[in-house]
């Protein structure tokens, strides 16, 4: 018996060749070296963070204040940190792919398999571990504040959802160091990801990271729906909710109903791979078309799940920085609802070419085109909101203008693709890649970045640097245009997507233009990180402890920055829309409460960490066939939940005197402070108290 097989029970199918660094030493091709460098970056990055934390002595506070916290604000911030870390990897991968295609005439520097791994990880990461956690983070932070709640309905479940998302991200990161990720693209179609074609660990990494993170999203969605229905401040009717909260409600409903098809698709694929089922195999009655159908039953609602909160953010940003209430609030709400329902009726447009009859294609094509109508309504509403407003071109507004112009182009190419005959022509070409990046980057990503700039001062008590922010935003906008507009042309010229190389020299010039754009996007990412560094360094000049740096309109601006853990010292009574803006106009923005009460808050819990560690172990065990570890981690996790259920839910009381002291101190600071006008918005004088000004023309 050889050494590895005698260890088989212990380490499954892991062996030394699973480490990418050794093959790179044995066979130093460029492709292997890139893989080894990536692995080293993960290892060194992880070690570096661990060393830094130890050196600064941060472990206890990390554990107590963050990892075991059930505070929705801290959970939200952790989601966003996760998203930013993963975004660095995702963008770098995008840049490497653009470099490969620029050099790709008759070759390039990466092997085909490595390129395939790159677009698979890039797509998976960008959707599941950048866009989704970024959204979940912003929702977590902002939505409870906007509805005047002290927390989400199920704080512990919230922590578990974060853990489930983090497990998925951890598995994708580990796949850089142990073995390989899938090469099957982000939808992972069988039979390409079936066991017969690919018996390796790659598809299994994809399955478990996506399935586990997907479960986390389902539970987040559930939590958000309940929170919005049950925790709104007294007096706040559904049609008084800020628009962001409305889009969150619709997104959360989509999460609840659209993640299950993904769960079904991934787990049935797993049954095929692990237990010799035949859902999607080529032989014995499997039908791989079923997988495609199931995946897009999830996949299409997913893109609306991503874009709707971005629409919500732009609504808040445009309204605030135009100093006007939203034009056509109700039409925006109805448009959001219509989009959510329609998003469940169009999934087939992702596989018009599968072979069903023209009637089926026509029905789904027409349904797809309909979505443009409510979306168009929204664009006009935003423009009308800006019309004659007191517009300030702060960083979020730069993103908003970039969004309004670029997103319309992306939407128009979407309407083109909704036409089955056109789709047949450009299916699987770079035209499609250009289209979806054109809606996802200016739409989702710009929205998220706008939200990051907009709410950052709320979360941390100081503003982000405007100059670096503007530079970064302009890099994103121009970089996007240079990277992706050429791909429309390349697609129409017939260049297939997912090509590691090509033989037609006429493709080459435009791939170089796209490479230049990718370099600009790289600068955008770099300046974004520089901005964060600079902003932290200069934070003494940008303090906004009083809480309202942008003359905000909704409840989250009516409390200190950063907010106390209980958010609202006194739960506000809400009358009407834009509650805080109205109160400020009446001169009652900061009422003195009649009295204070004790506040009950949930205690910290380790449950999320048990899930994080147990779930990561479970995922790895399944990927590498380490059965004892799979059983063990599952038993430990279930056991932890059961044990927890025997301990009555612990609470912690914050005494009224403590609440009163903090709140009174803040009110006193407000009474002393001098309000700033919008002209001084980005100067050091802005400490978060807005002067009452009437926007021109709004009277």
């Amino acid at each position, binding site marked *: 018996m050889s050494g590895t097989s005698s260890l088989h029970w212990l380490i499954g199918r892991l062996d030394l060749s699973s480490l990418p660094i050794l093959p790179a030493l044995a066979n130093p091709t460029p492709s292997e070296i890139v893989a080894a460098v990536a692995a080293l970056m993960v290892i060194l990055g992880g070690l570096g963070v661990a060393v830094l934390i130890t050196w600064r002595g941060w472990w206890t506070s990390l554990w107590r204040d963050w990892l075991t916290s059930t505070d929705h604000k801290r959970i939200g911030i952790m989601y966003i940190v996760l998203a930013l870390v993963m975004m660095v990897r995702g963008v770098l991968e995008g840049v490497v792919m653009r470099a490969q295609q620029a050099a790709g005439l008759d070759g390039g520097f990466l092997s085909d398999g490595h390129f395939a791994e790159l677009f698979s990880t890039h797509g998976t990461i960008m959707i599941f571990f950048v866009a989704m956690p970024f959204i979940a983070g912003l929702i977590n932070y902002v939505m409870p504040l906007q509805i005047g709640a002290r927390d989400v309905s199920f704080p512990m479940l919230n922590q578990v959802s974060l853990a489930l998302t983090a497990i998925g991200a951890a598995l994708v990161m580990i796949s850089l160091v142990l073995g390989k990720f899938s090469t099957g693209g982000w939808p992972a179609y069988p039979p390409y990801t079936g066991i017969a074609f690919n018996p390796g660990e790659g598809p299994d990494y994809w399955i478990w990271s996506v399935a586990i993170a997907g479960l986390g999203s389902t539970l987040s969605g559930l939590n958000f729906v309940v929170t919005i229905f049950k925790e709104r401040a007294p007096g706040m009717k559904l049609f008084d909710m800020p628009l962001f909260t409305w889009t969150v409600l619709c997104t959360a409903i989509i999460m609840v109903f659209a993640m299950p*098809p993904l769960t079904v698709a991934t787990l049935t694929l797993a049954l095929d791979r692990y237990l010799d089922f035949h859902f999607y195999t080529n032989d014995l009655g499997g039908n791989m078309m079923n997988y495609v159908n199931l995946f897009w039953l999830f996949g299409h609602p997913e893109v609306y799940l991503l874009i709707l909160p971005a629409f919500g953010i732009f609504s808040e940003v445009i309204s605030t920085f135009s100093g006007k209430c939203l034009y056509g609030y109700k039409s925006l709400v109805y448009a959001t609802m219509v989009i959510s329902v329609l998003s469940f009726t169009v*999934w087939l447009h992702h596989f018009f070419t599968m072979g069903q*009859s023209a*009637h089926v294609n026509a029905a789904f094509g027409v349904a797809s085109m309909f979505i443009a109508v409510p979306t168009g309504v929204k664009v006009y509403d935003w423009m009308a909101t800006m019309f004659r407003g007191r517009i300030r071109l702060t960083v979020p507004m730069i993103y908003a203008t970039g969004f309004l112009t670029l997103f319309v182009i992306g939407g128009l190419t979407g309407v083109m693709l909704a036409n089955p005959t056109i789709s047949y022509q450009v299916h699987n070409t770079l035209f499609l890649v250009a289209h979806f990046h054109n809606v996802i980057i200016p739409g989702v990503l710009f929205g998220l970045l706008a939200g990051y700039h907009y709410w950052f001062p709320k979360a941390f008590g100081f503003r982000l640097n405007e100059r670096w922010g503007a530079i970064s935003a302009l890099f994103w906008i121009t970089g996007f245009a240079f990277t992706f507009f050429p791909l429309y042309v390349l697609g129409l010229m017939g260049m297939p997507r997912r090509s590691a190389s090509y033989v037609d020299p006429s493709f080459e010039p435009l791939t170089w233009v796209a490479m230049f754009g990718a370099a600009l996007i790289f600068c955008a990412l770099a300046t974004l990180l520089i901005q964060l560094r600079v902003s932290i360094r200069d934070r003494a000049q940008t303090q906004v402890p009083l809480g309202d740096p942008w003359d905000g309109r909704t409840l989250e601006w009516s409390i200190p920055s950063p907010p106390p853990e209980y958010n609202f010292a006194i739960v506000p009574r809400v009358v009407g829309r834009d509650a805080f803006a109205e109160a400020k106009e009446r001169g009652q923005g900061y009422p003195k409460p009649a009295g204070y009460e004790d506040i009950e808050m949930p205690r910290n819990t380790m449950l999320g960490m048990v899930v994080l560690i147990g779930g990561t172990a479970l995922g790895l065990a399944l990927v590498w066939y380490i059965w004892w570890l799979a059983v063990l981690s599952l038993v430990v996790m279930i056991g932890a939940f059961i044990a927890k259920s025997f301990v009555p839910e612990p609470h912690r009381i914050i005494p009224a005197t403590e609440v009163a002291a903090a709140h009174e101190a803040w009110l006193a600071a407000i009474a002393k402070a001098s309000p700033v006008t919008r002209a001084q918005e980005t100067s050091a004088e802005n400490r978060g108290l807005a002067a009452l000004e009437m926007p021109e023309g709004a009277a």
Partner: protein
Amino acid sequence: MTPYSSDHRAEVRHYLVGFALALTLTALPFGLVAWGGVARIWVLAIVAGCAIIQTVVHLRYFLHLDLSRQKREDVLLILFSTLILSIMAGGTIWIVFNLAGRM
């Protein structure tokens, strides 16, 4: 043993009514399949009809849903879920059968 309150007894009766209905709606399709004598398409139609009615019976008698104002939101959630499910499941069956027919 303490005697049951009249409320309690009324509610037990409620459950029993539901149980009897469910029983009938189970016996009918099972009997039909067991003893046959009816065209297959009719059997299938009756099985489907009984299943739908029995689902409503369960919702009504075991889960206590009705059309009163108070429960309107509950009913709406269920109807919405049913709508989404029928779009998904119905669409899937339509698409895959259409494909199979062309292979």
